[in-house]
């Protein structure tokens, strides 16, 4: 973590909260949660509200689908923290082996044609955004995905193109696989709204 105020908390309440959660969970509170608590009114609140709606709100996509999208956006941005965090949540909703296959190459993973086409759109959105055209979206429609479902996926893509950038810029500490797994249980239970 490159900003010490985020690491330790920016108020007495937040310092106590970070210490308490770390103590109860038996692991260092991940940097993503520390950022969510920091200067909350400025960023954590509006970002958390959109993330909670996109990742846990009503959608044609399952929570596992959306977490897999997040993990892949993280992969395309070389964000090891977010690949680990969201891959771990996806693995609780989908099979771990399926998540690993999709992370290695979603094109050969045993997932629906609609999800594959959507991931192809999200990959272009992440890596070549100016090349997106109506044909890119039409290809997703042809795979059986509706406009509202594609919009939901685009929201996930936009949010994680933000998250990975501050995670990388701030150099989030990488938890162990076991810690990612425990943090994933908390994310499934509590969601993203800070």
């Amino acid at each position: 973590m490159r900003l010490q105020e985020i690491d330790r908390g920016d108020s007495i309440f937040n310092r106590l909260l970070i210490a308490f959660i770390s103590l109860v969970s038996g692991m260092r509170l991940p940097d993503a949660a520390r950022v969510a608590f920091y200067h909350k009114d400025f960023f954590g609140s509006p970002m958390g509200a959109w993330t909670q709606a996109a990742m846990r709100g009503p959608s044609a996509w399952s929570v596992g689908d959306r977490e897999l999208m997040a993990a892949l956006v993280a992969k395309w941005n070389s964000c090891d923290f977010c690949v680990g965090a969201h891959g771990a949540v996806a693995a609780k909703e989908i099979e771990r082996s399926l998540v690993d296959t999709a992370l290695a190459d979603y094109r050969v993973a045993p997932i629906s044609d609609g999800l594959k086409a959507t991931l192809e759109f999200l990959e272009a959105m992440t890596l070549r955004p100016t090349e997106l055209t109506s044909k890119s979206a039409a290809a997703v429609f042809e795979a059986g995905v509706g406009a509202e479902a594609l919009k939901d996926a685009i929201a996930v893509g936009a949010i994680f193109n933000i998250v990975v950038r501050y995670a990388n810029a701030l150099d989030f500490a990488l938890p162990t696989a076991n810690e990612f797994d425990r943090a994933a249980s908390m994310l499934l239970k509590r969601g993203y709204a800070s």
Partner: protein
Amino acid sequence: MTASRPDHRALAEALRYRVLEGRGVSDHATRKAAADRAAGGPAMAVPYDDLASQIGECSHRVTDAQVQGVVQAAGSENAAFEIIAAAAMGAGLMRWRLALKALDEASDASAGN
């Protein structure tokens, strides 16, 4: 009772408005310039330019020195955080707008058939 669908456009706008136009420690112009720069916009003054463009193009290559440079120039970690958040948001919302444009155009074309 069925929960209503999320209004992603409103949620994205609420985030943009808060980060770029709301109260903060850093000045609005720097936050706005960082968001634009990370979305491929014009260069900023040193040392902001290096960090904002790196966050936009290749965030995993951001260095300690780039972040520390902005902490020094902006005057506090809090102000630096605002600029980092603005840059990250600028790159993400640029993708949001382009992807929605593609979606809207495809939906219009589909409705016209």
